[in-house]
């Protein structure tokens, strides 16, 4: 186990370094950072001064070492637009994104598991077929377009729910959250549902496949033969066994939710990290772009690490295989 975790940890660190190098070279080779720093009428002397001040006259490996060194101190440069430390700006926006992603995850479980188990138990019903067709639609619908349609129907036409922003927030341990106020909750619902739609379809399929497999197992037959109520068989024997794959996949998909929140946040003007990166790309705010990329890579590497370690605890075959390899 320890060997597996250490190996996995080393791989994560390697990935972070490779990504930092890619981001660094992308920013410095593809674009011209000097162009961004000097004004148009700057003469040659002025340009050279900037180049020297930014350390761009040094060889690339020294520049890279400086970049990594600064990044390790949490210094990824000041935002051109906000004039603050770019890292700080992103960390400020993080809770909004995580709140949205967690809300979507919750909706995926609340809607996905019951619908999936239902269609798995009664596949021949018309309702099941409608649910399955709906789940195909959920996979195919482009998230941003569904978001637009939500806004059109629920905000513009019906006027039931607000379409932009987070609404009223309350500070909990210094973090602003929306879900504790009525206003915030009404702002949260549409974006969270929009983000969750894809995952709901996924959970329905997983739960259905799991149910259909488990239903024919001997221990379910035995539980039935023992005379247990259908309710108990479903909620104890069946649920327990379909939950492992569902939970694992959902854990893996949490990263996907954070990534896709870029889309939902842009549609619903939700002030999270995703909206920030899109605005920053639009404004060519390079320090914020770099900081976002580094942070998101870090977040994903951590999520992947946690998932892999959890997976190896749940399924011993994984770690045995890796140690041997």
């Amino acid at each position, binding site marked *: 186990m320890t060997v597996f975790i250490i190996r996995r940890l080393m791989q994560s660190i390697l990935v972070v370094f490779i990504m930092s190098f890619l981001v660094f070279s992308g920013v410095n080779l593809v674009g011209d950072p000097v162009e961004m720093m000097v004004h148009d009428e700057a003469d040659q002397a002025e340009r050279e001064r900037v180049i020297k001040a930014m350390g761009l006259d040094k060889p690339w490996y020294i520049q890279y070492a400086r970049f990594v060194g600064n990044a390790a101190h949490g210094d990824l440069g000041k935002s051109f637009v906000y004039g603050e430390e770019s890292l700080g700006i992103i960390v400020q926006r993080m809770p909004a994104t995580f709140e949205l992603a967690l809300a979507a995850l919750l909706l995926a479980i609340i809607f996905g598991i019951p619908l999936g188990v239902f269609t798995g138990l009664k596949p021949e019903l018309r309702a099941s077929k409608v649910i399955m067709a709906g789940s195909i639609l959920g996979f195919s619908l482009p998230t941003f377009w569904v978001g637009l349609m939500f806004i059109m129907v629920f905000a513009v036409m019906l006027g039931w729910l607000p379409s932009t922003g987070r609404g009223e927030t309350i500070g909990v341990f210094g973090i602003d959250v929306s879900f504790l106020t009525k206003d915030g909750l009404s702002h949260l619902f549409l974006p969270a549902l929009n983000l969750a739609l894809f995952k709901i379809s996924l959970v329905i399929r997983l739960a259905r496949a799991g149910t259909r497999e488990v239903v024919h197992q001997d221990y379910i037959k035995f539980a039935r033969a023992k005379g247990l109520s259908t309710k108990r068989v479903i909620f104890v024997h069946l649920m327990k066994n379909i939950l492992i794959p569902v939970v694992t996949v959902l854990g893996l998909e949490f990263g996907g939710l954070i990534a896709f929140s870029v889309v939902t946040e842009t*549609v619903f003007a939700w002030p999270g990290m995703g909206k920030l990166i899109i605005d920053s790309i639009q404004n060519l705010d390079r320090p914020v772009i770099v900081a976002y990329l580094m942070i998101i890579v870090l977040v994903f590497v951590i999520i992947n690490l946690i998932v892999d370690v959890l997976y190896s605890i749940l399924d011993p075959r994984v770690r045995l295989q890796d140690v041997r390899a």
Partner: protein
Amino acid sequence: MNDTTKSKTRVDVAENLTKNPDAGVDTPFRRFISDYSDNKIATVAAVVLGAIIFIAIFAPFISPQNPYDLAQVSILDSKLVPGTKSLDGWTFWLGTDGAGRDLVSAMFYGLRISLGVGIMSGIIAMCIGASVGLAAAYFGGRTDNLIMRIVDIQLSFPAILVALILLALLGKGVDKITIALVIVQWAYYARTVRGSALVERNKEYIEAATCLALGHNRIVFRHMLPNCLPPLIVVGTIQTAHAISLEATLSFLGVGLPVSEPSLGLLISNGFDYMLSGMYWISFFPGVALLITIVSINLVGDQLRDVLNPRLQR
């Protein structure tokens, strides 16, 4: 259900054989067509997809106007409700956008760009991914380990995130989004091909080819690749649908295609500004077109998977 239809086709084939020895021969292609058309929905999807591809290819000839020729577009026609007559007397069936373009024409041209980018990136990614996957399976050992590690690491990041990172660094443009989509997709192809190539590698015909002292290239591309094609085709269709959806999403976010290349995603994005004032059609119809495209590709892909999967065959 499948069994009855299949035995029926067998009888048909037998009857045809007695009548006309040439007409009813059970060639793999005919069997494929008859297996495919077992599923009505998938058949409809294939026809719809064919129509969409036709529209995309011949958009300049069949659309009512060239929406990007300023001489044909009048700002006086802007923001018209679907079904309104234009000043010249013909009808804007789906209305017009903010600049007075006929939405039907704009969608035809948009389909062209969306499909073009999606299919182009799919083909390039398939070539790269298939070559890499075959190499990994054929050479095995360290090569395999290294390649699959890279694939695993890349696939642990969501596609949209990888594309966003690349486009944040590269900038906008048809070439850039194609590059980004290729980089996003190649790993799926590599993984798929490696999986089936690993099975093929241990079969006797590869052993025979090796004993004939054929070159690596010949064995891999002439002997192994054709036998790995079915799963590759299935992944190809599904991935192309993903690529089209991803391109639309990225263009909507304003990091994909430039305004001069209006794909369906950009049309939807343009309509977003008008939607809050109740002009739904500018975003709605391009979205429906996108949805129909993606759903029909997915349905075709699903059916292809069922038909081409040898385990499900008799």
